């Protein structure tokens, strides 16, 4: 490689005579070009810092947008399948009350997605899966988790779901934007349950009385069909819990198609 190493005199010996000057010129440049340990370490640390900032940007902003799109696509796919497979409308649970909506009676395994939440106030592309159980393994997949000890959609009592306020889909980021009368829909294989938002409540994380069939009224016999959406409060904190209550309005059987208010959202056709 090195011409000097050959030791053979060549016609280029005149070039060799100029070699010291070239070497000097090269050594004058070298300090700027040399890859130093400190330099590489510094660049790696800067890179690490940038990666952390990128992660935070993803977690607090971009990630929820991407996951929201994925979850919405998933909901459209599942809803179309449910509509296609729609069998005869299920008989109401209570024969004495024919107006009562059907209620899921099958026992569901943890993590099983059995419905989707639609809230027009949260946007026309808002649809989030509702899965059984409130373990982090369920919630961190972007699901709203159903407290297994509470009732199912349409049942007399309290249908309660929890979700992250931000990150992991940020399902209930805008829970504080609900206004009295806003419709909240739960779509299942049977149809769509329509609830109307009534009020917000703030409690401490250990206040389990809100899980009762009549929230905050332990032991009271339920008469109403209630939905409770629950998340963290204040924003960016887990110090408190925020709850949004809604009362049941009506049921739309799957065979009749989705209610007009969310038809475009459910089917993905705008």
């Amino acid at each position: 490689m090195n011409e000097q190493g050959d030791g053979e005199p060549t016609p280029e010996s005149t070039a060799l005579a100029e070699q010291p000057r070239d070497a000097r010129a090269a050594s004058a440049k070298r300090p700027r070009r040399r890859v130093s340990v400190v330099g590489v370490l510094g660049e790696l640390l800067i890179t690490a810092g940038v990666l952390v900032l990128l992660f935070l940007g993803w977690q607090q902003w971009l990630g929820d947008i991407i996951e929201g799109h994925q979850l919405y696509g998933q909901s459209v796919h599942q809803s179309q399948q449910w509509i296609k497979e729609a069998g005869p409308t299920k008989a109401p649970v209570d024969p004495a009350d024919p107006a009562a909506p059907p209620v899921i009676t099958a026992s569901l395994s943890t993590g099983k997605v059995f419905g989707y939440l639609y809230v027009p106030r949260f946007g026309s592309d808002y649809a989030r899966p509702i899965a059984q159980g409130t373990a982090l393994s369920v919630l961190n997949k972007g699901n709203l988790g159903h407290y297994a000890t509470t009732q199912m959609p349409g049942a007399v009592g309290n249908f309660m779901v929890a979700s992250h306020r931000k990150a992991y889909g940020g399902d209930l980021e805008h829970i504080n934007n609900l206004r009295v009368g806003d419709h909240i829909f739960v779509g299942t294989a049977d149809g769509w349950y329509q609830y109307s938002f009534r009020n917000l409540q703030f409690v401490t994380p250990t206040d389990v009385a809100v899980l009762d069939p009549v929230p905050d009224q332990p032991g009271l016999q339920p008469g109403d069909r209630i939905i409770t959406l629950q998340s963290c409060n204040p924003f960016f904190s887990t110090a408190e819990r925020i709850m949004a209550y809604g009362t049941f309005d009506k049921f739309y059987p799957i065979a009749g198609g989705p209610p007009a208010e969310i038809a475009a959202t459910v089917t993905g056709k705008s």
Partner: protein
Amino acid sequence: MYAALWRALPGPWWTRLLIVLVLVAAVLSVLVLWVFPWIGELVAPQDVTVAPGA
């Protein structure tokens, strides 16, 4: 390190810039689509439910 990478790239400066932009876009995509969601599962688990106090 990055200066050495820049010199290692072939072609005139605008070709190098194009290659760098493509590389950066590829790295960002991998991070956002796979690496960050995976890390998100591991770090700072936040309890959002109501449960009896310990």
